[in-house]
């Protein structure tokens, strides 16, 4: 067996090789001799950080436990690279044009450079990645222990924790050395990437070697292994459709959201075209990596003792066959897988932590001067290095806490689900301009919380972080809050359950909040730049052609100034330059003039930014963007004010229109009223004038005639007086100038007074009035004079108009609710239905005016009086004769 020292020696030699590779690549990069370092092959191989120790060892274990279910982990990335490579290309393009340093930076930048989002995604990434780093440490220590336990060479079982600690320390040193050697503006690490590519080759070769050995050396050739596979339990393992879809989705999402994948795919990308190669080469790599997984698993199950950990078959099969060289190679492959993942993840996480957490904190504690001195560079490097150490310490602590108990693959999927929470904000951000910062924050928080609650915390096992009772009964016994059966939905697989709820709630909140909220100007600007990245940039080709530039400027100007004005402007400029047509040379003078013209419409900063963007000469700084945002905000503020003013104007206009309509109506009413009054006044005056002229001509008038005509003149004079009295009375009542003289009284007394006032002594055609004096004993507190005026008017009307042979007026008193009603009902013909509606209007006299002897204002006055007294007067139909009901509120009629 291999001695422990030898194994450690091989390890150290391998690490030394990596150091050299990284060092050489770094030197070449510094000297600008990149050459093959920038080849698509290196790029593709660097993508293999996707295949960690989990893939290297765990896939076999996964296959041994669950059959073909390990395949979706390869299927997801393959689908994304083949079918969605255009989305990745967009991501890469955005990364380049916006100088994105991490996925946290991308999301923060997209949503208006929101630091809150940066912190949120960083936290998510750290929490989601820490278990994964712990997993790598675990796999390395486990592989060491395999060699230790399988040996009888006398080397004592090394302390697993100490091994993990040493590995973590070694990785920290490597990552710090090559990950933070310098501060490249675009965060590329040529040395690290090259070393990762070498490791990619090592792990592929190692796994293929083990596979070849297992198939031909142990299994007895392909056909024999195929036979073993058919007989193995793996072949019988049913395919769980939900899990296949879920895991495929997770693995696909991981390509977008895993911090380390983002690092190698977007940040370290040197040329967009490399992605085209990777889109077929990386799936091929994955295919080769998965080729021997099932054979190794079945042969392992068939040859290894029952209870052997299938996660370690890659090591244990060659070891048990005495093939130490193959086993050592396999060990190096696993070591490569683990270290490459940890190194890249540590770099990616440290960039996020230092940029989004450490630096903002440090800056907020500094005086302003610090940002312009050289201090910042050192601080950034220090923050990076500390962050790398911090990330690895976290990973180590997690490894110690969980004790390396859980199966490798499950930790991997938990981690995948966690980082997948960034997917809606990411995909939404690069394809949907309507996505807002609040939507992204809301979605991320809910997704993160649900993931923690339903998957991450329960993963520590019953009584780990959550008590067993909480897991089975829900918090405070609330069943529908059970972490693994939210809302009582039964999804047996905790992973699918958590994936379903976290992703759907995340997406729903993201979409809903985005739709409901309004993005800030900066957000909208960033959103447009991200979503339309292919329209905004033309990578590799500047705006070299003057005419193309001018044409774009014209198109933009037409949108802002309108076609005619823009065309005139361009034509004039071209003429000034001695050119025909609409496309002048883009001289500084012309650009300055254009900018001024545009500034009139969109503001100076915006105009500068727009022209600068098309001409490509002036880059748009954050200050420019902020100015644009300020201007937009001011414009919106101004526009809001205008809108408010316009609404106010509309309101005023409507009020004026209504007032005008009312006045017009009043004017019509007034004309009709004046015409009526004129008629009512002129009629008696006509009689008076005619008869007085007759009387003045003394000779021709007999004594009888003289007497008769004098009486007519007298009567008409009285009629005129009464009319004027009524008019004045009504005018006072209608104008509300009347002051009520309220005093206590009794309804019976008032009726007595009214009856007495209307009795005509000696008139044969007397109206009989029937009353019930008992019911009339109602105490009142009101203007008794006004109320008796109403009663007198009604009784007098009955006297005038009741056409019965033996006219009778019944007066009935009753309580209706909180009101007292006095009904006056005569036995005449009553008032025709069509006239009932107008009797209370002014001059609404229905029959021959002389019989009435009034001007038709009586009931109108009654109505006004009753309104003033808080009561009412109404015609009561269906009583046989004419019937009027006077009602008074009882609280007014009762003694106060």
């Amino acid at each position, binding site marked *: 067996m291999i001695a422990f020292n030898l194994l450690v020696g091989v390890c150290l030699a391998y690490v030394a090789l990596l150091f050299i590779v990284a060092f050489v690549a770094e030197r070449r990069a510094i000297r600008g001799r990149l050459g093959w370092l920038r080849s698509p092959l290196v790029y593709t191989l660097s993508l293999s950080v996707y295949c960690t120790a989990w893939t290297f060892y765990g896939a076999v274990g996964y296959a041994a436990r669950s059959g073909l279910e390990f395949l979706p982990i390869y299927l997801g990335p393959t689908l994304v690279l083949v079918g969605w490579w255009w989305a990745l290309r967009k991501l890469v393009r955005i990364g380049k044009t916006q100088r994105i340093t991490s996925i946290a930076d991308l999301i923060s930048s997209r949503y208006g450079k929101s630091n809150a989002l940066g912190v949120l995604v960083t936290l998510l990434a750290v929490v989601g990645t820490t278990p994964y780093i712990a997993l790598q440490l675990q796999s390395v220590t486990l592989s060491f222990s395999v060699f230790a336990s399988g040996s009888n060479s006398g080397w004592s079982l090394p302390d697993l924790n100490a091994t993990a600690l040493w590995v973590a320390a070694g990785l920290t040193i490597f990552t710090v050395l090559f990950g933070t050697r310098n501060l490249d503006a675009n965060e590329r690490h040529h040395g690290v990437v090259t070393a990762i590519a070498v490791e990619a080759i090592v792990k592929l070769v190692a796994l293929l070697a083990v596979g070849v050995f297992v198939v031909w050396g142990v299994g007895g050739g392909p056909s024999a292994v195929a036979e073993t596979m058919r007989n193995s339990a793996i072949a019988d393992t049913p395919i769980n459709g939900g899990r296949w879809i879920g895991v495929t989705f997770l693995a696909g999402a991981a390509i977008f959201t895993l911090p380390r994948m983002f690092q190698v795919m977007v940040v370290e990308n040197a040329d967009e075209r490399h992605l085209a190669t990777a889109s077929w080469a990386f799936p091929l790599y994955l295919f080769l990596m998965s080729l021997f997984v099932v054979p190794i698993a079945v042969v392992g199950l068939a040859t290894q003792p029952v209870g052997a950990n299938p996660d370690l078959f890659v090591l244990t099969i060659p070891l048990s066959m005495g093939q130490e060289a193959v086993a050592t190679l396999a060990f190096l492959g696993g070591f490569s897988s683990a270290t490459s993942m940890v190194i890249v993840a540590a770099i990616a996480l440290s960039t996020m932590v230092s940029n989004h957490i450490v630096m903002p904190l440090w800056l907020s504690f500094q005086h302003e001067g610090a940002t312009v001195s050289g201090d910042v560079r050192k601080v950034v490097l220090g923050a990076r290095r500390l962050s790398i150490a911090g990330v690895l310490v976290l990973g180590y602590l997690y490894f110690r806490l969980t004790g390396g108990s859980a199966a490798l693959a499950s930790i991997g999927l938990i981690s995948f689900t966690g980082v997948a929470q960034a997917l809606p904000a990411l995909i939404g951000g690069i394809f949907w301009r309507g996505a807002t910062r609040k939507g992204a924050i809301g979605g991320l928080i809910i997704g993160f919380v649900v993931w923690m609650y339903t998957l991450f915390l329960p993963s520590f096992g019953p009584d780990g972080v959550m008590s067993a009772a909480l897991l089975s009964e829900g918090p405070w016994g609330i069943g529908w809050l059970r972490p693994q059966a939210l809302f009582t939905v039964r999804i047996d697989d905790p992973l699918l359950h958590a994936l379903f709820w976290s992703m759907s709630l995340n997406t729903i909140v993201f979409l809903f909040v985005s739709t409901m909220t309004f993005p800030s100007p900066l957000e909208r600007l960033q959103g447009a730049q991200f979503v339309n990245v292919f329209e905004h940039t033309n990578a590799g080709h500047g705006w070299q052609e003057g005419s193309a530039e001018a044409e774009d400027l014209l198109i933009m100007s037409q949108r802002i100034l309108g076609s005619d004005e823009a065309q005139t402007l361009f034509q004039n400029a071209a003429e000034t330059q001695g050119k025909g047509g609409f496309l002048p040379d883009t001289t500084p003078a012309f650009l300055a003039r254009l900018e001024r013209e545009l500034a009139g419409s969109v503001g100076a900063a915006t105009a500068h930014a727009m022209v600068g963007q098309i001409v490509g000469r002036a880059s748009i700084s954050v200050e420019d963007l902020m100015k644009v945002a300020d201007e937009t905000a001011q414009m919106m503020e101004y526009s809001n004010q205008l809108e408010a003013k316009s609404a106010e104007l509309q309101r005023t206009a409507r009020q004026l229109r209504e007032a005008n309509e009312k006045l017009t109506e009043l004017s019509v009413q007034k004309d009709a009223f004046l015409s009526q009054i*004129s*008629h009512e006044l002129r009629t008696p005056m006509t*009689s008076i004038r*005619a008869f007085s002229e007759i009387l003045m001509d003394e000779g021709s008038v007999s004594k009888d005639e003289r007497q008769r005509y004098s009486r*007519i003149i007298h009567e008409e004079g009285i009629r005129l007086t009464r009319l004027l009295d009524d008019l004045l009375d009504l005018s006072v009542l209608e104008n509300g100038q009347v002051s009520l003289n309220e005093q206590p009284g009794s309804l019976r007394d008032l009726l007595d007074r009214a009856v007495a006032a209307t009795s005509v002594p000696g008139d044969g055609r007397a109206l009989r009035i029937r009353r019930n004096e008992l019911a009339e004993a109602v105490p009142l507190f009101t203007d008794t004079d006004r109320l008796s005026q109403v009663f007198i008017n009604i009784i007098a009307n009955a006297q005038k108009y009741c056409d019965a042979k033996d006219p009778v007026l019944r007066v009935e008193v009753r309580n209706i609710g909180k009101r007292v009603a006095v009904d006056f009902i005569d036995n005449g013909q009553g008032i025709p239905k069509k006239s009932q509606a107008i009797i209370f209007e002014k001059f609404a006299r229905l029959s*021959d005016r002389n019989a009435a002897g009034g001007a038709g204002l009586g009931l109108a006055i009654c109505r006004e009086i009753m309104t003033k007294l808080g009561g009412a007067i109404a015609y009561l139909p269906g009583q046989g004769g004419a019937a009027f009901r006077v009602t008074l509120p009882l609280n007014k009629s009762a003694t106060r």
Partner: protein
Amino acid sequence: MGRDVLLIEDEPNIIEAIRFILARDGWHVQTHSDGKNAFEAVRDKQPDVVILDVMLPGRSGFEILRDIRGDDAISGMPVLMLTAKGQSKDREIAENLGVSRFMTKPFSNTDVLAAVRDLVAQ
């Protein structure tokens, strides 16, 4: 030349006054105190002149005037219109309908008498 006057008026006092003034001058005055059937009364009685009020119960004087002017047998009959509605609008309406003379109440007795004489003499 006849001296028959038909007075269409609903105010009894005004009827009495006009009757007195005209009778004293030797006119024969018949009256009709309702808007309804007033046109028929004009057609039946064939007076030499019609004195017509505007505001009448049942039918307005304007309508009666229109009927008179629309009937071939009596369309040329002189019509003196008296009204208590003193607005210029009413005079316009009456003139458009072909009134012979338009006077507002209160009137001067001599003016009425002169108008009646004048209308019959034409």
